[in-house]
């Protein structure tokens, strides 16, 4: 094998490892939720791993990410340590949001990860603003903004796509079309279900991508991100994917038929890459072990985390430098 081929194989093995990290991390979250270690809303990304892993390959450390309440995958791939994500879900001080945010509100400014937004569509205007700042300062940075097919129905979607196009902002819109908004199917949400086509009417390049194929996602996202970085204005990716699990831990999933779910599971992005790259079961065992280790370390870290003293309840409402100082 040539060196190039080796590198490529290495890289794809890394993509596989990243997808597995998300998968195993969330499988563990489910256990911990049942064990009441994690509370609140928990939205799983299982089945959609190829989207986060593929799309985020296109970003550099200087780029920015805005996500939703279904963001464990984006956070892990972006480099927020599994340990501080887990600690956050435990509500501990060593969590990436100091225990204040939980599963839906992961933040890490060092990695330029701007959260975890639990209002559908609420992250889009933030992404516009982050990109506007870069644009005004002439910095060649990309802001990747993840949101779902349901968010496309919100007025903010429309306002933000127009604004991004109008002001030629360096935003990479990543629409995770998993065919459902909670229990509401795409065709019940939208008259026009071709989301990429709709985005293109704002005069921005918009491409549909097979979101179950990590290599396809990576390739398209890289092209798009490059174009954005070069000053080509906003680009839009419709990433066609599917969630294998219910919307959240509260969701009995009555609205999808089993056959449909099984059908999509046959397209599991992890299995697909394993087959395609002919990853041996030995190799898998190695990766699995490595990932398992990372996750058990994460749990240890979370368990060891301290609870913030109740006395500091009203911290983080106003900044230290606030005139007259803090709360009313």
């Amino acid at each position, binding site marked *: 094998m040539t060196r190039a081929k080796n590198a490529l194989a290495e890289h794809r093995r890394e993509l596989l490892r990243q997808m597995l990290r998300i998968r195993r991390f969330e499988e563990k979250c489910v256990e911990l939720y049942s064990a009441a270690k994690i509370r609140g*809303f928990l939205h799983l990304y299982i089945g959609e791993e190829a989207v986060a892993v593929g799309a985020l390959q296109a970003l550099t450390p200087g780029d920015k990410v805005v996500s939703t309440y279904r963001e464990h995958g984006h956070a892990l791939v972006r480099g927020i340590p599994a340990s501080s994500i887990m600690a956050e879900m435990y509500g501990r001080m060593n969590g990436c949001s100091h225990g204040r945010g*939980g599963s*839906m509100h992961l933040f890490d400014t060092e990695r330029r990860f701007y959260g975890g937004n639990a*209002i559908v569509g609420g992250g889009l205007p933030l992404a516009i603003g982050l990109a506007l700042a870069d644009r005004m300062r002439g910095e060649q940075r990309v802001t990747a903004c993840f949101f779902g097919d349901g968010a496309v129905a919100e007025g903010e979607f429309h306002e933000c796509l127009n604004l991004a196009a109008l002001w030629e902002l360096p935003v990479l819109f990543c629409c995770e079309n998993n065919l459902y908004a*909670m229990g509401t199917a795409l065709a019940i949400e*939208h008259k026009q279900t071709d989301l990429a086509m709709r985005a293109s009417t704002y005069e921005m390049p918009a491409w549909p991508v097979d979101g179950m194929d990590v290599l396809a996602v990576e390739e398209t996202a890289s092209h798009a991100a490059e174009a954005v970085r070069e000053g080509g204005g906003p680009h839009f990716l419709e990433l066609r994917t599917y969630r294998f699990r219910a919307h959240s831990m509260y969701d009995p999933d009555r609205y999808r038929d089993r056959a449909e779910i099984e059908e999509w599971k046959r397209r599991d992005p992890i299995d697909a890459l394993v087959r395609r790259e002919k990853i041996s079961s030995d190799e898998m065992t190695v990766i699995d072990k490595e990932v398992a280790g990372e996750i058990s370390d994460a749990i240890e870290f979370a368990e060891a985390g301290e609870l913030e003293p109740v006395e500091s*309840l009203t911290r983080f409402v106003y900044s230290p430098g606030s005139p007259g100082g803090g709360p009313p």
Partner: protein
Amino acid sequence: MNEPVKTTYREAMREALREALRRDDRVFLMGEDVGRYGGCFAVSLGLLEEFGPDRIRDTPLSESAFVGAGIGAAIAGMRPIVEIMTVNFSLLALDQILNNAATLLHMSGGQIGVPLVIRMTTGAGRQLAAQHSHSLEGWYAHIPGLRIVAPATLDDARGMLWAALEDPDPVLIFEHGGLYNTSGELATDAGTADIARAAVRRPGSHVSVIAYGGTLGKALMAAEELSSDGIEAEVIDLRTLRPLDDETIMDSVRRTHRVVLVDEGWRSGSLSAEITARIVEQAFYDLDSPIERVCTAEVPIPYAKHLEDAAIPQVEDVLAAVRRAVGDGG
């Protein structure tokens, strides 16, 4: 009244919806996931099967549009029940609620009535963090033209909806998320409830503890405990947050001379501030001690359980406030 049956707040609410849909074909339910999903909190579970997709209408994530559509349909003679999944998302529809629903009757010189009912879940307590834990019902009570109700009991969960549908003006029903699973007995023929008056849920002579919705249970628990110390608290359930029933409040204050307000809203600008002001205006000389407010701390609700518990009113907070009120000035 016949045979009471065991039920829950959720089921009582569902029964109220079912009855309304059967009773009046102008009534329909519209909102996110009210149909195929069965309602975010399973309140409307089964209604799609009984009434069909035309009357149990799943909407896209377009809060402003479907709330405004409810206003328009109400104006045109329908009796829409719009469900905004939770109060947290209602901000996206606030322009329609304030500038249209609450205002059209007046701007049109009395021509355009808006007999619209909007239901939404409110409140904290389930570790849903800052964006999903708002208690804004008291804030909505600032808006002229709206009626704001907060059912806290099974009877009100069952009875307030029909009363709201009979109201010629827009009514917002706030259902505290912590109440859906509360269970108890309800008469099978439980009828419509009054939505103009507060109710005394527990008589007492030493102090008036005024609560509503999610805080009523805590107030009653505190009252029980206080009674074993010989302090008899009168517990008032506001029920309707706008217009407020001053009469019931003042009547109690004039008898107890001491007041504790329990309110899950953020303290500053809370509904309890308004009630305090009214008591000062209407019963100042009857007060023996400062009015105590037990409210939510002025902080976006944190995810961590111990911090969330510390942020929102607890039974202990009510106990402490009552003891301060009774101790002082007496």
